[in-house]
């Protein structure tokens, strides 16, 4: 469990970028921080592994303040996935994945063997292991980034707009992979994005932020769609338009769902199968 308590942050003499932020991030769940750029979501994420220290307030992991931990050791114990992978361009794929175990003193052979297993885990062919990052596609680089983050078998995985720089098809693929990995590995995932659809797809808990890191609403995707806290949220998640403002239309062949532009989006079936994921089961 990660807990933010009354956290504020200002850089230098600048304005407060985070103002009195408190949040509990449950273990073994995916929490997505979502908001427009400048809302402080990346700053909040970076406070967890001390890339940024709060000006006031505390960030605790399982009851221990991160400020009591050595930043370097802390970072090695937490997986971090950056946009475009953030790979080291001069290291081969296998050595990029092996970075953290190597920093932790694991022998080169063991670290590489583990790295190869991780390539399997993230769905990359082992033949890519000796390539350099620049020789991979964007989607492949991103998978290597995820493999690297998993290399030290961390309990916590931080993902900072990891799919922001890949095309929509690859992005959808990587999102499904993330869901699969989370099911298999059961990590505590904190994910930052500005894409509300991505948030709803991946999250157990969605936290919608506005400027200054103010929480506008938090809850499961269902809770938020069913009951947006205010007009800002409603407009941000788009329940008033597009594919989320659906009306029922009676046709000779049954009832269908139609969006605000009159395009048919789906079919209404009685007593639908259980939700695709265990949404709404937050404490």
């Amino acid at each position, binding site marked *: 469990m990660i807990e933010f308590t009354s956290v504020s942050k200002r850089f230098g003499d600048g304005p407060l970028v985070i103002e009195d932020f408190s949040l509990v991030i449950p273990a073994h769940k995916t929490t997505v921080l979502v908001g427009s750029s400048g809302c402080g979501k990346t700053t909040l994420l970076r406070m967890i592994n001390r890339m940024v220290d709060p000006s006031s307030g505390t960030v605790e992991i399982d009851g221990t303040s991160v400020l009591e931990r050595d930043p370097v050791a802390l970072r090695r114990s937490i997986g*971090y996935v950056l946009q475009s992978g953030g790979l080291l361009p001069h290291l*081969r794929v296998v050595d990029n994945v092996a970075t953290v175990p190597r920093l932790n003193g694991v022998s080169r052979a063991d670290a590489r063997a583990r790295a190869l297993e991780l390539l399997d885990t993230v769905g990359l062919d082992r033949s890519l292991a000796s390539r350099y990052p620049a020789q991979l596609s964007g989607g492949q680089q991103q998978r290597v980034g995820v493999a690297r983050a998993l290399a030290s078998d961390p309990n916590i995985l931080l993902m900072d707009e990891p799919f922001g720089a890949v095309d929509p098809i690859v992005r959808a693929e990587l999102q499904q992979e993330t869901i699969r990995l989370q099911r298999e590995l059961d990590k505590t995932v904190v994910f930052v994005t500005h894409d509300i659809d991505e948030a709803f797809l991946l999250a157990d808990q969605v936290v919608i932020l506005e400027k200054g890191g103010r929480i506008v609403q938090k809850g499961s995707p269902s809770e938020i769609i069913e009951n947006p806290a205010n007009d800002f949220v409603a407009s941000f998640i788009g329940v008033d338009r597009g594919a989320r403002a659906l009306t029922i239309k009676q046709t000779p062949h049954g009832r269908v769902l139609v969006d605000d532009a009159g395009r048919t989006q789906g079919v209404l079936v009685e007593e639908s199968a259980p939700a695709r994921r265990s949404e709404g089961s937050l404490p």
Partner: protein
Amino acid sequence: MNLFLDALAWIVAPERFEGSSSLFVRLGEHLYFTAFSVLIATVIAVPIGYLIGHTGRGRELAVGLSGAARALPSFGLILLLVLVMGVTNKPAAAFTAFVVLAIPSILAGAYAGFEAIERRTINAARAVGMTEWQILWRVEVPLGLPLLIGGIRSAALQVVATATLAAYIGLGGLGYYIFRGLPLGRYDEMLGASILVAVLAIVIDAALALCQRLFVPRGVAAGRTPSLRTAPARRRAMVETSTAP
């Protein structure tokens, strides 16, 4: 073209290869000035450049300094230092001038090499838990090496050229012949020596260019295969523009 034939004849004449001012001696002196002063300048400039590049502090100062150094007339600097340090300390004065002239390019190469690394890469290294020391040695130094060597390359060129002028104060080197031929109007000697100086500069430059290419980390070179031919030129241009005043 006759003058060039005369110059070639002068270069290969037997007396060029014997005595206390044979080509070997003068070439040796020239190489010694260049190598030794570039080495000293590297020892001084690289740590400072790395510090500036890693912390980002003092950058304005370094940029201003290397800009001003570009306009510093090297010929004047040597003569000035000889008079200030005393005519008996000519070699020391000349070496000081060479080192002073070599430092700005190397300094610029060192910090520009760090600055050219994407912020994201450094952030990633920090995020996975590298210490600042590890970031320096495992990420910044290898990735910055090509630009550093580019800086050393510019510095070596500068010193080779200035060492030619140093013969004016009687320091030797290949410039010796130019200044011996000049007052006598011996064009074959001046031209022969000038050609040798030009060839020496080109060979040193080419050797360092080769080093520069060899030291590009392989993963970085891999991403650039399509534009491999133009890449080193661009990198050099980058050092040049980034040191602009």
